[in-house]
């Protein structure tokens, strides 16, 4: 930017100076040097104004890019945090289910005849297995999202990230084991 301003200023001065020399040589008239100096100064003032305006525009563009980048990074960070929190909640619930299952099994084993209790307790393993599978799936999807973002080119980066986030939101599979302990064993006949 500065180089461009300098070039313009130099070209302006050279052109005006050359024109004056030519005019003086052709016309033979004496020229008061005050007004040419004033014109040159005006030219430099214009060049300076242009350089300042261009610098301000560049700074504003940089601020916009920085804001958009920060917004995008914030959106990504929010998605990642949310997914990690969800995964953590699922794992905690999985732990609770396993603990409940173990308690039930211990009660069942105290009475050899309590096959009923043992069958109920053993099914918790299946429920926990589904939850863990779901969590793994969510983390895999997040991993894929980050890789695809990393592979995206510089062109339209922000738009591409938004597109991928939107795609991920649509693809999110329902949690197959959405239940609390209180719903276990519920029977509904339609």
């Amino acid at each position, binding site marked *: 930017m500065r180089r461009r301003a300098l070039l313009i200023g130099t070209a302006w001065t050279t052109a005006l100076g050359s024109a004056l020399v030519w005019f003086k040589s052709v016309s033979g008239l004496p020229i008061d040097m005050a007004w040419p100096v004033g014109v040159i100064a005006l030219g430099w003032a214009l060049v300076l104004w242009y350089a300042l305006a261009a610098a301000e525009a560049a700074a504003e563009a940089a601020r916009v890019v920085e804001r958009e980048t920060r917004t995008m990074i914030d959106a990504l960070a929010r998605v990642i945090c949310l997914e990690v929190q969800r995964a953590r909640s699922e794992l905690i619930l999985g732990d609770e289910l396993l603990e409940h299952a173990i308690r039930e099994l211990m009660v069942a084993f105290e009475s050899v005849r309590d*096959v*009923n209790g043992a*069958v*109920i*307790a*053993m*099914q*918790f*393993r*299946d*429920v926990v*297995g*589904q939850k863990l599978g779901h969590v793994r799936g969510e983390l895999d999807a997040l991993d894929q999202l980050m890789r695809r973002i990393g592979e995206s080119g510089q062109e339209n980066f922000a738009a591409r990230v938004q597109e991928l986030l939107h795609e991920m939101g649509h693809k999110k599979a329902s949690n*197959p*084991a*959405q*239940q*609390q302990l209180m*719903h*276990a*064993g*519920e*029977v*509904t*006949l*339609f």
Partner: protein
Amino acid sequence: MTKCILAVDDSPSIRSMVSFTLKSAGYEVIEAVDGVDALNKAKAKSMDLVLTDQNMPRMDGLALVRALRQLPAYKSSPILILTTEAGTDMKSQGKAAGATGWLVKPFDPHRLIEVVQKLLG
């Protein structure tokens, strides 16, 4: 005549437990690993009741219910969905698909036998 029940679940342990429970109550149990397998078996032999999981590969429980209801032999047969999902939205989908009932895992074997006996008379 011994009633025949089709037990559908992609989990071998769940299939074993359902089979063990229902056989102990005197029923014949045929196992299927997913919806596609179940549909083929249901077409090959007439089942008195179908007990299916919801989340299975190839064909899930709701799709199986809809497919069975298209078959003349299963238009009014009892079809139960046995699943980990307890949400009212899913239950509504089950009802709309034509399911007879919705059971939330883990099932109580005594309760399962009660429900089956009630539906099969």
